């Protein structure tokens, strides 16, 4: 299965090109929250999208879509065009969609609750349900391109984006579709989710220095920084892509899944769950661990999670973990929850295509338990080949609930 189109709207840019450029430059997309409601919040910063949907989407369309669906549609349109599918006749019976978000149309739900309290039942929008349902972004992407092979919404908290892309891979493998538009989206910058995550002690409270708050692998890391946006890829069977002469960015070679079944929020401290997903991705992709030269880590900047992931990587790959250039791009984008797997797949695909691993910023005092090869401050050149074959990048995503998903992306 090959990746032929990329789309994104993120805290670093309104499309893939501007996001990738900012990422390589080591820029932070985290900004102070200046809304009135933010004044009393324990956390007053987030990664807002760089380009507001209002700049690229008509008002009528915007009022009918939850913000999470707006992001997904913007990214999907870019990916579709990037794949060279705009204006091309596609067999819609063989076209699918798999797009998810971690927590769905939460701002629509809460804004309509405010309207209910203020105006009574008549104040609630008749569009509230089709906007807040978690499958709404997928449904709107499906409507946009007329997809008939199936429109799906896997949900697994912060593993959602990767889970959706893995689902898309299996749709094509099982013969249900030739082309699947897939990825993740999230729009949860609202006082309720922020209060909830902050009360879980999961978020950084470094409000004084937002651009330095997301600091995976730094000793002083104190939690994740919330981001918003979407990353979408066009996945296609090799035959279909070859028949239309499509440009191929990379091969999605395999996906690995596992579940911790340890705790609803804490990762399994043994790392066994993550290690199992890594092994399973390697086996599913039919690659040798020697080929893995890059990892887009889940690394959200939490004290336990970041180093636990590295420990699991070593457990799964042994010495082969040592030749992997590891990037924690959430240091720049913040954590997009269900959108994370989407944008980070875009980044991992770009990395193997352009032979560049993006940097990890904000490490001033490296945690001694981060004892693998972390790409710091500057991007790192990657080789195109290894003695065992073309290079492979892994993209890890883990979610509350103990969901582990690992994608294996091979250079084309």
């Amino acid at each position, binding site marked *: 299965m090959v990746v032929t189109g990329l789309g994104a709207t993120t805290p670093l840019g309104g499309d893939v090109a501007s996001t990738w450029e900012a990422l390589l430059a080591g820029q932070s997309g985290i900004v102070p929250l200046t809304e009135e409601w933010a004044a009393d919040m324990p956390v007053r910063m987030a990664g807002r999208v760089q380009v507001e949907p209002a700049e690229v989407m*008509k*008002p*009528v*369309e915007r*009022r009918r879509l939850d913000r999470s669906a707006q992001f997904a549609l913007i990214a999907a349109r870019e990916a579709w065009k990037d794949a060279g599918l705009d204006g091309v006749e596609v067999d819609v019976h063989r076209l699918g969609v798999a797009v998810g978000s971690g927590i769905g149309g939460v701002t629509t739900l809460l804004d309509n609750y405010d309207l209910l309290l203020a105006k009574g039942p*008549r*104040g609630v*929008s*008749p*569009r509230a349900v089709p906007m807040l349902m978690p499958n709404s972004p997928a449904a709107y992407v499906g409507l946009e391109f007329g997809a008939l092979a199936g429109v799906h919404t896997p949900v697994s908290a912060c593993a959602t984006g990767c889970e959706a892309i893995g689902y898309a891979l299996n749709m094509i493998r099982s013969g249900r579709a030739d082309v699947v538009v897939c990825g993740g989206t999230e729009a949860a910058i609202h006082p309720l989710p922020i209060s909830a995550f902050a009360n879980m002690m999961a978020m950084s409270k470094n409000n004084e220095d937002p651009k330095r708050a997301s600091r995976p692998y730094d000793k002083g890391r104190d939690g994740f920084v919330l981001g918003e946006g979407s990353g979408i890829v066009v996945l296609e069977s090799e035959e279909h892509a070859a028949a239309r002469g499509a440009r191929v960015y990379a091969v999605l070679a395999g996906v690995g899944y596992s579940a911790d079944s340890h705790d609803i929020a804490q990762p399994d401290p043994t790392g066994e769950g993550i290690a199992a997903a890594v092994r399973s991705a390697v086996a599913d992709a039919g690659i040798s661990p020697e080929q893995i030269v890059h990892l887009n880590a889940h690394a959200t900047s939490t004290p336990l999670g970041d180093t636990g992931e590295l420990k699991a990587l070593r457990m799964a790959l042994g010495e082969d973990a040592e030749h992997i250039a590891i990037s924690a791009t959430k240091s720049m984008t913040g954590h997009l929850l269900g959108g994370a797997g989407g944008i980070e797949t875009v980044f991992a695909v770009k990395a193997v295509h352009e032979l560049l691993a993006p940097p990890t910023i904000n490490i001033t005092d490296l945690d001694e338990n981060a004892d693998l090869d972390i790409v710091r401050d500057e991007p790192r050149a990657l080789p195109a080949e290894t003695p065992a074959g073309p290079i492979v990048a892994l993209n890890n995503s883990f979610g509350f609930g103990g969901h582990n998903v690992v994608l294996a992306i091979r250079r084309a």
Partner: protein
Amino acid sequence: MATQEEILSGLAEIVNEVAGIDVEDVQLDKSFTEDLDVDSLTMVEVVVAAEDKFGVKIPDEEVKNLSTVGDAVSYIASHAG
């Protein structure tokens, strides 16, 4: 009490906002569904916004009788205030 012209122009603004139809296309003889692409959900949005704007109650069972812009203007004119 709003005049027929004021109601039409207010309604046109609402239809423009919720359905993206040009204000000048919202004329008395236009059918909401046939001419203005106002589907059933959008019609509810139009009705609720009109209730707010003109201080009128438009019961659900009445909405199906409002097939043209003119029907809506007449209903509002005779029930407002």
